[in-house]
């Protein structure tokens, strides 16, 4: 029951202009030591484990953020059909170099197949199931790899605030939280996998909000992290602003096949540009997002739950927002915390000097990198699949 291994769900070649080239890396997958993180405390209990039960009873494990009592935010590739195989993403966010169709996203998986578990172990039964998946339905993993899932149960867990109205800043200190593989682990057992956090990160790139703003080295609506951070199982996990605990990004892809490689680069979905989607998701869930605490309001964590408009009565005092590396920052968005003033859109990504003159042709000349989508499938499920009748084996061709 406990023997589960990992496979990387997607590997690919990613073309990113002006980036370092790692041509020698193999297209393969294994669980690698990751993060070099540290245990995630109870204040981060709003980061939950998302288990997707596939048609053949294998599973896909991801991380997610509870952003409303009955609403989680995660990577869309955790909740949608994904075609396996190598692929690349161009700086404009287009899927390229995928001869076998790798990196393409299909329809959303049935919401009922999505199970939510909390941080406390051992986990037994799910705290909630999915009720509705909401996303921009991107056709590829290269753009807008973000999804919300309305849950069938309101959870009594801390809510994670969102940064709204202003972008993440270049070099902004951040913390990554997730249920991915840890330093020495080669297996993930969803019942016992610990949540980890990685402090001391900083945003290494911020993409434009729209392709109309031009192509930079960072795809639209994405963030970069340089150096080891997340790994298999961290997909969908939040990157939190160290100063406020608000979600800046959602872990999505990794360039490079080894999570622990010194120069590995991670790609995250930049959350603030998705205001419309956020509005739709919260409207569907019938709640309001917890806004980002202002630095001066850092200690007023208790108000977060009440401010969220959560139907969960218990959320008021217990919904302290996630803390970042600074610990007690989380949940500071009390009733009095004003929403941050919109700031001018960050143009920092363009300052990297890698703007391309021809947005539509950028992919052709771009060097290749590896991307690793960080979902996890239990080996047990795969072994079982091999013993199943031929009809089930057919389905496995489409699975990860």
């Amino acid at each position, binding site marked *: 029951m406990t023997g589960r291994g990992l496979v990387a769900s997607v590997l690919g070649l990613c073309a990113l202009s002006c980036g370092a080239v790692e041509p020698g890396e193999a297209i393969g997958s294994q669980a690698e030591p990751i993060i070099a993180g540290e245990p995630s405390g109870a204040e981060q209990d709003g980061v939950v484990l998302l288990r997707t039960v596939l048609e053949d009873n294998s599973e896909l494990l991801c991380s997610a953020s509870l952003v409303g009592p009955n609403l989680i935010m995660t990577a869309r590739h955790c909740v949608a*059909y994904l*075609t*396996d*195989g190598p692929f690349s993403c161009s700086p*404009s966010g*287009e899927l390229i170099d*995928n*001869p*076998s*169709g*790798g990196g*393409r996203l*299909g*329809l*959303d*998986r049935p919401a009922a197949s999505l199970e939510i578990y909390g941080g406390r172990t051992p986990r037994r039964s799910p705290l909630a199931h999915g009720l*509705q*998946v*909401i996303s*921009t*339905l991107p*056709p590829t993993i290269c*753009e*807008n790899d973000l999804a919300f899932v309305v849950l069938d149960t309101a959870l009594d867990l801390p809510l994670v605030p969102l940064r*709204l*109205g*202003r972008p993440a800043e270049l070099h902004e200190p951040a913390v990554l939280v997730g249920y991915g593989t840890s330093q020495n682990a080669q297996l993930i057992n969803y019942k016992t996998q610990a949540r980890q956090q990685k402090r001391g990160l900083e945003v290494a790139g911020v993409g434009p*909000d*729209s*392709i*109309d703003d031009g192509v930079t080295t960072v795809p*639209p*609506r994405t963030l970069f992290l340089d150096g080891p951070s997340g790994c298999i199982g961290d997909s969908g996990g939040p990157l939190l602003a160290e100063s406020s605990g608000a979600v800046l990004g959602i872990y999505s892809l990794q360039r490079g096949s080894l999570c622990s490689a010194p120069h590995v680069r991670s790609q995250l979905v930049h959350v603030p*540009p*998705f*205001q*419309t*989607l956020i*509005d*739709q998701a919260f*409207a569907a869930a019938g709640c309001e997002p917890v806004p980002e605490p202002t630095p001066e309001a850092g200690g007023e964590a208790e108000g977060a739950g009440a401010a969220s408009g959560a139907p969960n009565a218990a959320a008021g005092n217990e919904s302290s927002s996630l803390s970042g590396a600074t610990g007690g920052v989380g949940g500071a968005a009390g009733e009095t915390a004003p929403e941050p003033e*919109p700031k001018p859109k960050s143009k920092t990504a363009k300052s990297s000097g890698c703007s391309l003159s021809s947005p539509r042709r950028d992919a052709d000349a771009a060097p290749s990198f590896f991307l690793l989508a960080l979902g996890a499938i239990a080996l047990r499920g795969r072994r079982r699949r091999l013993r199943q*009748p*031929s*009809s089930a*084996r*057919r389905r496995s*061709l*489409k699975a990860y």
Partner: protein
Amino acid sequence: MLTKQRALRAALLVGLGLGGAGGCLIVSPLDDLPASVDGSAGGTNAGGESAGGKSTGGTAAGKTSSGGSAAAEAGGGTQAGRAGAGGGCLTNAECVRRSADDPYRCRPSDHTCVALKNGACPLAYGDAADPNAIYFGAFATLNPVAPEDNSIIWSHLTALDDLSGDQVGGLPGVAKGPRRPLVMTVCNNAKDVVEAGLAHLVEDVQVPAIIATLKGGDLRRGFEKYRANHDTFYLSPVSVTTTVANETDDGLIWGLLGQPSDFVPTYTELLKLAEKRLRKERDMQPGDQLKVALVTTKDAFDSELAIAVEQALVFNSLSASDNGANYFPVTLNGDDPKLKTQLETTAQDIIDFGPDVVISTASELFSMDGGLLQNIDLEWGGTQDKPRPFYVLSPYNAGDLNRAILLMNNFIEAGVETDPEQRFVGVSVAGARDNTLQNAYSTHLRTLFKDAYFDTANYYDATYFLAYAMVAAGSETELSGSRIASGMQRLLSGPSYNVGPDDIGHIFDALSAGTNVHVASTLGPPDFDPKTGVRSVDGGVLCFERVGDTVQRQTDVLRYDHDQAAFTGTFPCFGDFYP
């Protein structure tokens, strides 16, 4: 025998798993068109997607939107973004920009940004940000893993590439204004989401027209639900039920591929030919009685077709009803939660009956993996020592022939039967008498989507008819279903032009000048019934020809000519059949 049957079944299942692309014919109301979806299937998908992206698909999200900057700035920023889903808007580009470059439109009725896509309608193509965009809806049977790999969609996109691609740029603008690109939202016609898809198109996006690749019952329900409050035009690229054809619809429903009654003579003539062949092949004496089973489902089109066919069937020189115990009608229920058991039980009932001929007016329940056909042929034997039955497949089955072909191939390979292909014929829609346009379409399609199945010209035609009807509707900025319906009437007579890229400019000019035109499509002339809006069609016949150790389908080998009340053509698949 049992072991052999099981081994055969296993082999068939594996074969199906590896078989990949499904076949389809234009007659198929709702088939699962070829979708090379397996991630491990190699490079078959890439070309199609690449072509699609470069032609019409890839820039769907308004990434190349023009003229949107001012609007975006006016509506940009946080507050505008918050209002994006439900707040005010002035331009489409503004909505697209607010929404992470996702395809949105600024809905004219209330100046609200609305997403073109949702869970039921997951695909959108075209420049949604264009201020002059014309939005319409379409349906297709989407594969969850690779919804864009779909020959119905590829067929639509081929037409959109002609009409709305770089060369033409869209429909003529209002008062010689900029061209109006077409933007298509594609919804899933799967049973569980088709209602949500219709609601999204009609109520949310408020499209004036839908290319309605829907089952007859779904189309009727959708039309009747929304007709009171929404002026929407429906063009069905597939066959419709008589109920739909006769709907009091003010001309808002049109159909390209006929209705059940069009296929009845083909069925009856095929049964005559089958009886003649079987009596000779099986050395049946005049007193020996042919036994016939007729299979249908509770689907509206299937059941209507069955009723019409049953009334016309003659075998043993008697009507079906007069044949008594020699006639065995069967109705499958697709809503049965124990469908597998139902199919197995029904198959056994049919085997026990021992038919010489099985006639299908059923859709996927007959031809799908694990469907009735497989169950009958794989379980045949035991107490039944007659030869396996002769099959007459339905127009729906004609679009879903891979399982039947694999069944035959496995019989050949396993030595179960020498010539299984000689037991199968099928009813379909006859193609145009002149194949020039069909061939041009096929060539064009394959240049854009190399994996596309080419017998999908009805979807291409539908896109053209809709586009021209929009042009013929007049110069209103906001099109309505009623105006498009009026525009359809202007495409039926006048100077003759063809669908396809060559005549686009001529037709635009003629319609804009007030001249009605006669639009010949890949399917033939626009023989729409002016009362019903449904085009009448001739039934066609398909068969299977042995090539080495496998069988290949031969489509459109015979045509039932209504004028001559007889088949025309040649039948190449086996002897003692036709003439």
